[in-house]
């Protein structure tokens, strides 16, 4: 299935697939890889592993906001590429931040 889709995506898009896609909240890294099946999929790596960020704290809103969608939802691992142990810490940190009104439960931060 992947063999079928790959040539079509390369012919229709040329190179740098995913550049034209609207920016996805959470997976904000450039070339982070498109989520759609039709496109070439780049291997995503965990931001926390590569940048060696160990402390995922609820006070670090700027960091957490990268992994929260516009709607306020936590962006799933399959879109951001965060590894399981880090996603676990991340989600608990986001929930703590929500509790203390640093992040919204739903919708944009008013």
């Amino acid at each position: 299935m992947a063999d079928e889709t790959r040539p079509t995506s390369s012919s229709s898009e040329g190179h740098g697939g995913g550049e034209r896609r609207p920016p996805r909240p959470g997976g904000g890294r450039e070339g982070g890889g498109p989520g759609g099946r039709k496109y070439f999929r780049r291997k995503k790596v965990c931001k926390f592993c590569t940048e060696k960020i160990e402390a995922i704290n609820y006070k670090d809103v700027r960091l957490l906001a990268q992994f929260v969608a516009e709607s306020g939802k936590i962006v799933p691992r399959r879109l951001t590429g965060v590894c399981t142990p880090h996603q676990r810490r991340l989600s608990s940190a986001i929930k703590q931040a929500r509790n203390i009104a640093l992040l919204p439960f739903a919708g944009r931060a008013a």
Partner: protein
Amino acid sequence: MNRTYELMFIVRPDMTEEDQDKLVSTLETAVASSGGKVKTFEKMGKRRLAYTVRRFHDGLFMLLTFEGSGGLVHELERRLRVSEPVIKFLSMRIDEEQKRLDKIKAIRDSKRKASAAPATPAEPAAEAPAVTA
């Protein structure tokens, strides 16, 4: 058994400076009276809340780090709950997380030292053949 906790609370934005200090000092005395120790206290300033809490859009964020037992946390939370200007609070145990971070840091430092140590003797060795040639 003393543990380290972090208590973040939000007070209403129109609270006067004196009232804030009064509230904080009552909390600090509560910590001291139950055998705990205040480590740090920080006013994080006025911030916009992500959602409205008791019809407030802004709040003054405060952060108190202290050592103490679980009963002390209960006592502080009870005090915050009954004090009217406090609109939200969150207490968290942080010593285990800190321990984990220190451990990771120690491992990283030891690795860095191990990688740095063989690099220095390698340099003269590389130089030596160049000189003889």
